[in-house]
């Protein structure tokens, strides 16, 4: 039950894109069509889950005072995490290319872009700094909720963008401004979840 609450609050109530503004670049850039949005969303879920598991382990084993070095190295979090994520994404790309070519074909082009997605580093840092996620299971539930929230938001935006493509939009709102207006309306809709009473 507690895990379910974590997932729902991370994905809907404080949505990663629409209320915490992490991962705006792919949200606005790769949402031209539903199929690419789906690919990006699934790739983000994949990478966030794996990177959170790895950074959680590294943080607990090496960086915290209770780790094997016995020193409080948490100030190194930023440097270590960004390197681990960048390396992990590269490794994942090579692994998928070699072992699961079908998955690589559908996710491959999105993987290099994810390194610069601040949602990945954001989740890793939140999990290691917030004491509510000190257990591995809750941390993973939070990671899943956040990435699922990203997936939901980007697919919704892509479907709306496909619908309004041929609409009669004022000249100066064509292109980026109308996408931002759509994102604004979606954010208003998502603030409705903040009154959701769960748990």
């Amino acid at each position, binding site marked *: 039950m507690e895990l379910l609450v974590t997932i729902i609050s991370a994905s809907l109530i404080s949505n990663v894109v629409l209320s915490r*503004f992490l991962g705006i670049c792919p949200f606005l850039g790769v949402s031209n069509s539903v199929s690419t949005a789906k690919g990006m969303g699934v790739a983000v879920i994949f990478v966030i889950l794996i990177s959170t598991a790895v950074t959680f382990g590294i943080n607990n084993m090496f960086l915290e005072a209770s780790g094997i070095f016995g020193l409080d190295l948490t100030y190194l979090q930023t*440097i270590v995490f*960004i*390197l681990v994520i960048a390396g992990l994404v590269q490794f994942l790309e090579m692994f998928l290319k070699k072992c699961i070519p079908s998955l690589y074909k559908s996710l491959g082009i999105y993987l290099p*872009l994810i390194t610069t*997605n601040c949602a990945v580093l954001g989740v890793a840092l*939140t999990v290691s*700094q917030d004491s509510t996620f000190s257990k591995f299971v809750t941390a993973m539930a939070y990671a899943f909720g956040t990435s699922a929230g990203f997936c939901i938001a980007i697919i919704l935006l892509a479907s709306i963008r496909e619908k309004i493509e041929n609409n009669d939009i004022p000249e100066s709102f064509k292109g980026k*401004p109308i996408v931002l*207006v759509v994102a604004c309306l979606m954010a208003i809709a998502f603030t409705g979840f903040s009154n959701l009473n769960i748990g």
Partner: protein
Amino acid sequence: MEDNKDKKSRKKTTIETKEKKPSFWSCILNGIINENPTLVLMIGMCPTLAVTTSVSNAIGMGLSTTVVLISSNAIISLIRNITPDRVRIPIYIVIVASFVTLVEFVIKAYFPVLNEALGIYIPLIVVNCIILGRAEAFAGKNNVILSIGDGIGMGLGFTFGIMIISAIREFIGSGAILGHSIVKEDFRAALFVLPPGAFLVLSFLTAIQNKLKLPSASNKKEGCNGDCLNCDIHKNDKVIKEEE
């Protein structure tokens, strides 16, 4: 002998006229006006939208990004001749991350209020596209003085851009400028300090830019445009990969 000297001097002059290196001041102005990262190039959107709820937050964020940008630009340009081309991106990331950690320490020690307000967005300066973008596009190719100038310009341009957005949001949303409340409570639209307001203000700013035909990422094909798939940086990566 004289002929040789003549040739040499001629060579020098031709090189100078060919490259026409920009001056320190033109680099600074370029970042603030022509290629303003927030209003023209539209890169680094995450902090732009997230921390613009009040002007003081925006100034804090802008200045810390500026400090990181200047110092990382300087170091990257210092080591540009000994950086192997293949591993340059990880090297840039490590340099940027180190400076971000330093800035985080300073903010935690001297500005605890700002630290509370910005929270996780301070370490996330690492993944701000402006910093890696300038490292790749400018500091890796130009000398130290120019790179510092570019860092100052881009940093101040970013600060200036997010200050405009945050001033609009703070004034409409909480009826205040720099924390001094001006407007009565009945006339405030709290929506503007909530997340949707950020999208709304940015969309109207870009729409006004389109209307006035000012240069911006959405009416000019140059710049980042938020379109990561067709980004030049990744194009280069793809080319390198294909070559491999």
